[in-house]
């Protein structure tokens, strides 16, 4: 197995609180890995560690064979932050073109293609600040896609999107994965979990399941992933003694 992302004994402290308690996982090259867990479970922190902007207490994160955040990696990784991070005072096209300009060999045509990929061609000349919430986050996604990264880290990319658009984006993700791109996609809705190849279930800074979708279902003995998540949590917690 060719490993794209390798996390070992990762401990992260934010403020005075330890949010990741020595977790480890590895993500194979190509394919879509879902990072699932409730809000506040540490998904974003793990993703920030992988893209190299999170201070870590101990442990290591390796991406494509190099320490996370190293200079050579930055042209090969795309990151979508949870809150859309694009310039509200520029148009969609100006935003995507600017991010395109940061990567060697990425052209204006590539920028237009990224805009089309997220379904924003019609709004390309609109100011980002005047877009709807869903369009805003898609503009942000276009900026993550435009650099043609080998590893895409997407923090809740489909939140607030209508089902048709969600379907289209997932088709795009599958297409990228088929071409060899490694995607790590976080979500807190379980109906997206079924679309992934692998799942990492995380809760309170600990990984409680890390396997293929089918294996997670089998381990929890249910087809319903929501139910599977619940059962896996219960299985880990000390059983409360009923009197």
């Amino acid at each position, binding site marked *: 197995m060719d490993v794209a992302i390798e996390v070992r004994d990762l401990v992260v402290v934010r403020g005075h609180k330890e949010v990741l308690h020595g977790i480890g996982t590895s993500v194979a090259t190509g394919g879509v890995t879902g990072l699932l867990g409730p809000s506040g479970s540490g998904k974003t922190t793990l993703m920030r560690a992988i893209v190299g*902007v999170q201070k870590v207490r101990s442990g290591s994160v390796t991406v494509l064979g190099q320490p996370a955040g190293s200079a050579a990696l930055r042209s090969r990784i795309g990151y979508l932050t949870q809150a859309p991070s694009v310039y509200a005072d520029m148009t969609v096209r100006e935003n995507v073109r600017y991010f395109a300009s940061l990567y060697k060999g990425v052209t204006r045509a590539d920028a237009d293609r990224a805009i089309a990929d997220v379904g924003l061609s019609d709004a390309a000349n609109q100011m980002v600040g005047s877009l709807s919430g869903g369009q805003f986050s898609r503009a942000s996604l276009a900026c993550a896609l435009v650099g043609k990264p080998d590893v895409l880290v997407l923090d809740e990319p489909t939140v607030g999107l209508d089902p048709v658009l969600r379907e289209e984006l997932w088709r795009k993700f599958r297409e990228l994965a088929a071409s060899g791109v490694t995607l790590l996609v976080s979500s807190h809705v379980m109906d997206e979990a079924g679309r992934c190849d692998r799942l990492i279930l995380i809760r309170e800074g600990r990984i409680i399941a890390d396997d293929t979708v089918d294996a997670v279902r089998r381990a929890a003995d249910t087809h319903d992933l929501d139910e599977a998540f619940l059962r896996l949590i219960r299985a880990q917690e000390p059983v409360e003694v009923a009197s």
Partner: protein
Amino acid sequence: MSPRILFSTTRRVLTQLRHDKRTLALVVLVPVVLLTLVYYLFEKQPGVFNEIGLIMLGLFPFAIMFLITSIAMLRERTSGTLERLLTTPLNKPDLLFGYGLSFGLVAAVQAGVATGLAYWAFNLSTAGTTGLVIVFAVADAILGVALGLFFSAFARTEFQAVQFMPLVVFPQIFLCGLFAPRDQMAGWMQALSKVMPLTYAVQGLQEVGAHVDPTPLMWRDLIIVVGCIVLALSFAAATLRRRTD
């Protein structure tokens, strides 16, 4: 640093400004309004505007640019775009010098208009050339840009950022020789004045005002101001942390 990314970042900041017409208008008009006030304030005292007005040509752009850029950088931080940029091939100096260049261009327009007004409408007269006055006015504005970018690193909120303006800018104005001649200040104040870059910016303007030809002192002042700009931008880049809590 990459020339390609530096250039595109400069362009991006200018594009943002182009979309914000009111800010652009204010940048050009505020010094004009203030300069007009100063002119009429000293209208009855011949010769005073030649001294005070000349210094104001350096002070207003300095203060305004400090405030604008510290807010601009803070916005970059709070909107999440900074964090995102730091995951891309962009290097920190690309960003800081890109801001320096783009706001420097805006400052050149601002300084040009203010200086033009001072000479043609308010009969400012200097022994040295108008060109040198503009050079110093632009250098002062870029000094404000550089210091604004640097100090915004220490602000987490807008409330904090705006207070850096009085904290950083006012003492430099008090001690630059505008209110009291520097050689009449107490020793410790003179020492403070000597480490403040605005002192040299103002001294340079005074040299242009008093001498027909550029003096060695004026060149030294200009070099110090430019040096402080590069230093502040480099420090700003160095204090930018790729990894945060």
